[in-house]
């Protein structure tokens, strides 16, 4: 091994994430995993989705996960509209500890792993409180400190830069230097999108409650009925899963150690700008 020649350029380190952002970020990450896991266990009690006020086994679902007897054994079948997909192994029929189970979502995705609507509801409603409290703390702090207005709300220049930002993301080109010190426009829109999705999750969740509907019947009109709210709850949850996937991919592409460290300690090493050394 030969020693590297020349002085290694010192990277500029900035304080990027405030303590409250870091705290609420990790709490939110944990709670979202628990909410999705317990939500899927609850979903398994009636794995069909409908539009409108009502929907039971006499009505036509637009999405259904079940098991069909093919004579040679049960196969998992997911039906979306008129499309029938064989999803054996994951959806409809799956194995857990060597046992073949007929359940919509497999044990390794649900909390608890065993099927129990009562226990899953307890998890869901405990962490729903944490999700809402954590979200409100973040929003209140974000507005007061102007973090939301300054760092997340896109400027007109940001919006004009959307096509360019899309191209940069597609080319896996990440901002460097001064540009890396602020959120790019797609980041801003993605984070605002996540805030919107979590808010909609809370509202569609409450719309499924017969008690809350008596208190706020306008929610039924907003979402088009209790069954529509239930379906939207699932669709918005899918949106959150999509966000998490893209978010994690971007963290890996942008430099996982630097990115994760910045969300733990707050300190972020700015990627040097090669075009303008010393910038």
């Amino acid at each position, binding site marked *: 091994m030969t020693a590297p020649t020349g002085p290694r350029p010192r990277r500029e380190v900035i304080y990027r994430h405030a303590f409250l952002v870091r705290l609420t970020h990790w709490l939110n990450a944990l709670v979202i995993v*628990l909410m999705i*896991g317990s939500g899927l266990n*609850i*979903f*398994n*009690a*009636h794995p*069909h989705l*409908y539009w409108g*006020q*009502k929907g*039971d*086994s*006499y009505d036509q679902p637009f999405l259904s996960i079940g*098991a*069909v*007897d093919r004579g040679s*054994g*049960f196969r998992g079948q997911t039906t979306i509209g008129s499309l029938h997909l064989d999803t054996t192994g994951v959806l409809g029929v799956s*194995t*857990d*500890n*060597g*046992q*073949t*189970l*007929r*359940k919509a979502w*497999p*044990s*390794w995705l*649900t*909390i*608890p*792993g*065993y*099927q*129990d*609507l*009562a*226990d899953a*509801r*307890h*998890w869901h*409603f*405990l962490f729903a*409180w944490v999700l809402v409290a954590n979200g409100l703390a973040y929003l209140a702090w974000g507005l007061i400190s102007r973090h939301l207005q300054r760092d997340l709300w896109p400027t007109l220049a940001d919006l004009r830069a959307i096509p360019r930002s899309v191209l940069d993301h597609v080319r896996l080109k990440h901002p460097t230097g001064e540009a890396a010190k602020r959120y790019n426009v797609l980041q801003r829109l993605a984070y605002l999108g996540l805030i919107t999705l979590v808010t909609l999750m809370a509202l569609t969740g*409450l719309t*499924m*409650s*017969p*008690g*809350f*509907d*008596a*208190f706020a*019947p306008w929610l*039924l009109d907003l979402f088009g009925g*209790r*069954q529509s709210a239930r379906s939207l709850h699932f669709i918005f949850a899918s949106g959150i899963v999509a966000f998490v996937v893209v978010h994690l991919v971007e963290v890996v592409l942008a430099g996982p150690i630097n990115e994760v460290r910045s969300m733990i300690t707050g300190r972020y090493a700015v990627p040097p700008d090669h075009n303008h050394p010393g910038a």
Partner: protein
Amino acid sequence: MTLITRRNALIVGAAGSGLALSGCTKIVMGDSLTRSAGFQRVLANAEAWTLSAQRFLLSGGAMAREYSPSDISEKFKANGTLYPGGEDYEDAVLENFAGWRLTVDGLVTRPVSLSVAEIRRLPSRTQITRHDCVEGWSAIGQWTGVPLGLLLKTAGVLPQAKYVVFHCADNLEGEPEKGGMQAAGQYYESLALADAVHPQTILAHAMNGKPLDVGHGAPLRLRVERQLGYKQAKYVQRIQVTDTLSGFYGGKGGYWEDRGYEWYAGI
């Protein structure tokens, strides 16, 4: 319609080797945690917050939405017990519930005993409401019945009363698709007095303009419209006013409550 037969539960048979994760699902998926006493206490606390929040929001006596006749489900799923066993109920069906009597007793000044015919002649309320099952499905039906508040007023509720317990004629064996504890037992339910005297809380004897059928709880069932389906006790025989739920069956205030579900089923 359900593809999962009751008896076979969820286990179809052994096949293949387990998933890589399956060995640790008990830890990773919180199975052991769920069953630990400490975590059960945390869950119980969260349920208490949820109950208080719902009580606070509904303290103004808010009404559940009532729908129009065109919203009524063509077919309304009957759930839980579809036909109570036993010779007594069989005989009651054969004689069209002519000998069925409803008693209201417990902490009241004047215990009441009424035949179904007498109940049908009492002032009634008709409401088209949505039935929300804890599993997630909903159906809309029209219910006609006597306001429970009227029955309780007739009987004269004593000042120390807190709850109303509904004794039902059906013995339910459980619903394996829900998972969890599924021991058979006598169906019963209970309400806080405040919910029992809500104007939409009725003892229904008719559904969609016809006498209640057996699947939906003939001859009398409870409708308590701001709560989930399992609170809507069917085959009601006796209404007992009490100051504690601890002496009844599992002590949690209902068949499903004794099997882990929330007593205040508002969400």
